[in-house]
């Protein structure tokens, strides 16, 4: 029983972190209709920003998370204005090429700037507790709580704030939103910034729990895309559910069978979802 509880708790914490990365990606796609392949690089840069703030300079951990989120928000907003805005309305392949170029530039520069050794971010908390025989570290509890809090905050922001309404309106129909007086350019860079900041916070959380290297963004992007496709492009709730499904598969199947089978099963689940719901679990038809 405790084994299954352990798997469940591990899967839950893993899924929430996955969801945090994927939600940023789905927000960017939902608003701008671009494939942001460099999303994982925002995740990596966010983790390194916290590393230098907290591990190198010895400054407070949570202020470092806020600094990282703010920094990457600004970077995302600048990238949107400088690189992606001119491509608006053009074939999606252009933005795809730009974001792939960004992946190579940021990842390569990261190795030059940060070095190639694996680094660790000291945790803000230590210790843990037993729940029904299963161990859960305070670190994982805090990270899961932060993930849940951020997802709720984003949901509330999109539902109840004026900017959130504007973002949803642009995601729904950019032309009509513009006719209603919404400044779509502004919404685009805000959404891009928020999405990037979410990735940065996820990078801070996962970087603290695990370890960080300049190449860590690639896998984050892959996982985020798997989740977004599963949950439905542009759907925040879909990203949450998709993240939890992937986290559970990773935990339960790896523990009971093997990691290889977990990867295979993850893709089998994605294929099945796409066969029965081509737009993903909660996605719209973007055709």
């Amino acid at each position, binding site marked *: 029983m405790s084994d299954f509880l*352990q798997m469940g708790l*591990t899967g839950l914490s893993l899924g929430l972190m996955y969801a945090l990365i994927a939600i940023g990606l789905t927000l960017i796609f939902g608003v701008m209709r671009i494939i942001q392949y460099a999303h994982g690089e925002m995740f990596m840069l966010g983790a390194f920003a916290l590393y230098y703030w907290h591990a190198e300079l010895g400054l407070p951990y949570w202020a470092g998370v806020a600094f990282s989120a703010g920094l990457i928000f600004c970077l995302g907003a600048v990238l949107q204005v400088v690189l992606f805005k001119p491509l608006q309305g053009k074939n999606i392949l252009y933005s795809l090429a730009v974001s792939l170029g960004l992946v190579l530039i940021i990842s390569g520069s990261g*190795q030059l700037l940060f070095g190639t050794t*694996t680094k*660790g971010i000291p945790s803000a908390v*230590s210790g843990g507790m037993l729940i029904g025989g299963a161990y859960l*570290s305070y670190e994982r509890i805090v990270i899961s709580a932060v993930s849940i809090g951020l997802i709720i905050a984003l949901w509330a922001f999109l539902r109840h704030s004026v900017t959130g309404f504007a973002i949803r309106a642009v995601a729904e129909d950019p032309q009509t939103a513009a006719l209603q007086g919404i400044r779509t350019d502004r919404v685009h860079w805000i959404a891009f910034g928020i999405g990037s900041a979410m990735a940065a916070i996820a990078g801070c959380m996962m970087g603290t729990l*695990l370890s960080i290297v300049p190449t860590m963004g690639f896998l984050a992007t*892959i996982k985020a895309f798997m989740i977004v496709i599963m949950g439905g492009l542009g759907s925040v709730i879909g990203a949450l559910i998709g993240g939890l499904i992937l986290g559970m598969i990773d935990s339960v199947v790896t523990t009971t069978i093997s990691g*290889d089978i977990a990867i295979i099963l993850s893709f089998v689940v994605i294929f099945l979802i796409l066969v029965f719901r081509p737009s993903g679990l909660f996605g719209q038809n973007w055709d």
Partner: protein
Amino acid sequence: MRKTSPPLLMNRRRLLTTGAVALAAPAILPRSVFSQTPKTIRIGGAVPLSGPVAYWGHSTAQGFGDGAAVINAAGGVMINGEPHMIEVIDYDTKGEVADSRAATLRLVEQDKVKYVYSQAAASTVGMLQVTEPAGVLSIVACWGYLDLFGKNYPLHFRAETSDYEQGFAYIPFMQEKYGKDALKTAAFIGPNDQDGTDCHASYKRLMDYYGITQKSAEFYNWEDTDFYPIVAKTIADPPDFIVTSPSPPGITASIIKAARELGYTGPISSPAASETTTILEVAGEHADGVVLPVTNVSPSTDTQKAVEKRFMERFGTFNALAGNYSWWIYSLKAAWEMAGTAEDTKAVAEALAQVQLEDTYVGRVKWGGEKSFGVARQGIYDCYTTTIDKGVAQVEDVRFPALPDDY
């Protein structure tokens, strides 16, 4: 009366003649007549300088860069009384087979190198596709892909003492430290590729030799980040100790952290991590009870201190792994001088297999494995075993592997 020669006058005809002879001379006379600099031996590096195993690649490249500078400053390699300078050319393989093959082709065909060094399994596999058919001698750190090693690859040397040979130093050490009865069972955690599979075979052979029962063997994907699930599975039936081979420091640290958080208290040995900073940084207070064979974190001899000092001055950084790789180039130097040639790689290979160095960063070094692989091409050296206790890493044991007679 002293006869004096008339002064040599430089008229136009003589000037033109002298100029023409000077211009034609390089084409007529042998090149050596004009050579002011010694001959050069080129060593190529097909190493991962970016990507997940770049840390290993940089550490290896630093050893060759430093060694070449030291040897050149001391007058070079003396082959039959003639000095030869060493030039090192490095290309990035990104840790990929295809990139390594391309880098090695460039080294062999364009740069005309006859000696290539490499690092880690993927780069070694790509490199070997080029070096062995081209008659190029290769020297690498690679533990897996044992079918690409041995008498069918007579020019291929594996300088880094593998997890198997290390075992004949660290297992006896652990048995002395923890007691034989406390180490009756073990579990293996490694990557799910050929490297991991081969290292598991070596580990199994080692455990069988010492009569230790294997409880489980788990294999992770290189892309895995959270090791909670795989560690939970490993310690479901807790082994007396865990071996994480051939996992790099970052992954090893994540495995250690997960194991300790999930309540596992036994020793964890990591033959490949060879680095303590990352482990202490990532695993934090959970790093206690970690055993790192061939990891000398406290240079103590004059040679070791000199290596550390030079690396710090030259590269601004030093780690135990870079120290481990610093002897390779000196081994080659000894082989060139012993063989009396740098052109005949077969003769150099035969000489290299005979080389023994007494005072390197890793202590005593020799090549072995004749009975296991058919040729003596495996580097074996003193194992400086570091342990971590209360957050402090220190060398706790130094011994040469007590290899079995049939090795």
